[in-house]
Structure formats: structure tokens, C-alpha cells
């Protein structure tokens, strides 16, 4: 998508090359390398493939994503990983590495050294030990050489950080003119430190910190990075509101293109060190809301589910018949969690809507009923069913 930039750089360097001795040979395209931002839902998993076949996997999403990552890597012909990096021990980064450790041989494992009490972290360390894999806790300034022209530098790492996110290993991969800054979940504090230390954070491609959360990507930092394209790795309809609107604004202010794994699925960026190509459509933000209108084909019942917002935890039903309906004996079902809300003995007038609320803000009021103070609708795959007093499903919303 962005061959243009490379051509521009090529031209500039070519012109510069006319007046100066040819010490820089950056205009020469190299063999193609690839960086894969694997779609693991709400989490991170990044795979770097050098032209010589050397590989690095950075994070593995949640535990449930592990099998998919292994299948993806095997489909790429990967039988061995030279480096696996666990940026920090949160489950949405290390969970899937358990499957990877069990299925693919690993030469060196790079860990933040930040201890976590989760069984997942313990299992990860146990597997590294049992398989006798070289284990490294890196420091800022360390480098991992995938091949002559492809270096992955550790910009930040802090095993003593009080917060797991701030322990994140921050990496910058450079392949001639094209660079990738991979932030893990590093927060504003880490960004500020990098700027204060005068670390070179400029990058062609940025994997924004913490799934596009506003705890990362401060305006100053993003200006310093000045990415041409930014990848947001998050899951659709996540509970955290990622990516946050202010982060999108900050990225757009520096004219960065934006891509997300939530919308585009796995994103593969290929580069020859001069130009790069992103195999995805740009982020639109469409689909960020989960209030899905009922498909017209299902509009058969008199009382219908008309919307379900998993963020606000509000489900709305409407009486589309011409007479009042008593809801005694009716049920609203969260299919995934098999949770059932029993409607009270109330009449719903023709044309009227009724909201069923859950979560901390749930309340009973005008045209609103409280189901529970708990979260009911956990994810986008959680279908809602409306069941009448006869036990028939009269309306369903995915």
C-alpha cells in the first residue's frame, strides 16, 4: 500500500548520492523479509521472518489462541523458532506461548524477568526448563541479529517495574531504511523514559502500545516515532474500549496510516529494506459498536430484541404488535453464559421499548429493568435469545 514512500526515499537518496561519496548503499533493495501481526483477538502476537529463514515470535496472545498461532506458523513452513520473546507476563501476551513451546522447537527464549503468580507463567518457565531452551533476560541496548542487515534492538526492559505493563520488553527491528517499533504494553512512563534517554524511537511502522489504550501513545512520543503506519492489535468488542479515540486522534495528527488486527485479521508487512507493502485494508472504526440491528428476516415475533450493546450492557426489546403484551414468564437468555433473566409481571404497550441492563451501571427505572450488577454480556459471540411464556424462542440477536 505504501510503495510510494520507499520510492520517495529512493529518489532522495539517489539525488544525495550524486553529491556525496557512495558510503550509504541504502538504496539497494534487499531480499524480502516479513513481519506478521497475527490476529489473536484481544492480545498480541508478532512473527518476524528474515530472508535467510531466521525467525522471531514476539508474544502469543491468550492461551486459547495458542493452537491457531502454531497452525499459522506451521502453514508458513516454520518448524523452528530462533527467538521467542515474552514481552511481559500478562496472559494476553504469554498464554498462547504454552502451545508454541509444546509444538515448535525454540532456540532461545527471551523473557522480561518480571515474575507473575499465574499458573500460565509458571507453566511457561517449567516448559523452558524441561526443554532446556536457552533463557535470556535482556537489558536495554541488547541486540538480536537475525541476519547482517536485520537487527532487533531492545529499547526498554525493566524486570523491577512495579507494573507488569511497564516491564514490557520494547523492541525496534531495523532492515535498512524500514524499521518496526514494537511497544508491547509499555505505558506513558516507559515512553517518557525513552525520550529522556534520547533513544532513537523513530520507526516506519509502529505496533502501538497496549492495544491502542490511552495509557500508551502520548502525543510527544508518537511525534518522535512519526510512524507512517501504525498497527493496533486488539479484539473486536473488547471490554476495555480499545482502541481509545484519543489514540486514534494522536496517530491521525502525525498522518500515520492505521491498521488493526480486529478489522483486517492477520496483517502481513513485507519489505525489501527500501519499500514496504502492507497486505490489509486501513482501519475504519466501523464495527467498533456492537449494537447490531436485527436482520429483517427474523422480524417475525411480536416482541423483538432490537439491540444489544455489550459495552454498556443494555439489551433493548420492543413490542412491534398492536396490543399490549404481558411479559410474565418470559425470559432473556445470554446463550454463551447460559444466564437467564426472568421478566417480572409487567405489560409492554404497543410500540414501546424496554431496556434490560446489567453491569455496574444497571438500574431499574422508566422503561428500564435491572438484570444484575454483574457483567452478563462478555463478548461479541454471546447471543441473546428472547423466550416467551410458552418457552418458544421469539427473537434472537447474535
Amino acid at each position: 500500500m505504501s510503495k510510494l514512500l520507499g520510492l520517495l526515499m529512493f529518489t532522495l537518496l539517489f539525488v544525495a548520492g550524486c553529491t556525496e561519496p557512495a558510503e550509504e548503499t541504502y538504496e539497494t533493495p534487499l531480499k524480502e523479509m516479513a513481519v506478521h501481526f497475527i490476529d489473536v483477538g484481544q492480545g498480541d502476537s508478532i512473527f518476524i521472518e528474515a530472508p535467510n529463514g531466521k525467525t522471531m515470535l514476539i508474544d502469543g496472545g491468550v492461551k486459547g489462541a495458542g493452537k491457531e498461532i502454531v497452525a499459522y506458523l506451521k502453514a508458513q513452513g516454520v518448524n523452528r523458532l530462533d527467538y521467542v520473546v515474552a514481552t511481559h507476563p500478562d496472559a494476553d501476551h504469554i498464554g498462547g506461548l504454552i502451545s508454541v513451546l509444546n509444538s515448535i522447537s525454540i532456540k532461545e527464549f527471551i523473557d522480561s524477568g518480571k515474575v507473575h503468580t499465574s499458573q500460565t507463567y509458571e507453566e511457561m518457565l517449567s516448559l523452558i526448563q524441561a526443554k532446556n531452551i536457552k533463557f535470556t533476560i535482556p537489558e536495554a541496548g541488547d541486540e538480536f541479529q537475525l541476519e547482517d542487515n536485520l537487527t532487533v534492538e531492545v529499547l526498554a526492559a525493566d524486570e523491577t517495574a512495579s507494573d507488569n505493563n511497564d516491564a514490557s520488553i520494547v523492541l525496534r527491528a531495523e532492515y535498512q531504511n524500514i524499521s518496526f517499533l514494537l511497544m508491547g504494553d509499555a505505558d506513558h512512563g516507559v515512553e517518557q523514559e525513552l525520550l529522556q534517554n534520547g533513544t532513537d524511537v523513530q520507526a516506519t511502522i509502529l505496533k502501538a502500545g497496549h492495544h491502542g489504550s490511552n495509557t500508551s501513545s502520548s502525543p510527544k512520543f508518537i511525534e518522535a516515532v512519526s510512524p507512517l503506519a501504525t498497527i493496533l492489535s486488539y479484539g473486536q468488542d473488547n471490554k476495555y474500549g480499545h482502541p481509545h479515540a484519543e489514540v486514534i486522534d494522536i496517530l491521525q495528527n502525525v498522518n500515520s496510516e492505521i491498521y488493526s488486527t480486529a478489522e483486517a485479521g492477520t496483517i502481513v508487512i513485507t519489505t525489501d529494506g527500501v519499500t514496504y507493502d502492507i497486505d490489509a485494508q486501513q482501519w475504519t472504526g466501523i464495527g467498533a459498536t456492537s449494537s447490531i440491528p436485527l436482520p429483517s428476516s427474523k422480524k417475525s415475533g411480536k416482541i423483538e430484541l432490537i439491540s444489544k450493546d455489550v459495552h454498556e450492557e443494555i439489551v433493548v426489546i420492543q413490542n412491534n404488535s398492536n396490543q399490549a403484551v404481558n411479559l410474565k414468564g418470559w425470559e432473556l437468555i445470554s446463550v454463551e453464559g447460559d444466564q437467564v433473566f426472568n421478566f417480572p409481571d409487567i405489560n409492554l404497550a404497543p410500540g414501546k421499548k424496554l431496556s434490560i441492563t446489567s453491569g455496574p451501571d444497571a438500574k431499574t427505572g422508566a422503561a428500564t429493568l435491572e438484570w444484575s450488577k454483574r457483567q452478563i454480556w462478555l463478548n461479541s459471540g454471546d447471543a441473546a435469545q428472547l423466550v416467551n411464556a410458552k418457552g418458544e424462542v421469539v427473537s434472537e440477536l447474535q
Partner: protein
Amino acid sequence: MNYNKYTLDRFDGDYAIFLKRPEETEQLLIHHAEIPSELKEGDIVNIMDDGFEYKIELLKEETENQKTRVNNLLQQLRNKE
């Protein structure tokens, strides 16, 4: 009443993310307003769900034991470096 054991994996935005031990494939999100304020990342807890609200009990000793165990494991790996 039914208790299940969880690890408080992390905080993110308004939520605390608990993982159900031992597999930790199942996660439970609870709004931070609904959990005791002293809970920290890495705490191992019992959570009782009575269908209306969560009752959360910190397992101090188990948390400490797990920390020691993981620290030892990490130390062994470090020494091999």
C-alpha cells in the same frame, strides 16, 4: 455456595481480569468498583458467585507460596544463562 480459585492476572481500564485456575483458559472480568481495593496483580483469590454479586477472598499464603515457587524457577533459569 460455590468457590472457584482465580489468579488476578492484571488490571485493564475499568476491569480486573481474573483467570480461573488451574487451566487459566477461562477469564472473569469484574469492574474494579466491585473488588476489594487492596487486591493487586498476582493475587490468588477465591471467588464466590451467588448469582447477584461476587464475594472475593484473598488467599495470602497461597499467593506467597506461588511467588516463592516461581521466583525459584526463574532463578534456576537465570543461573543457566
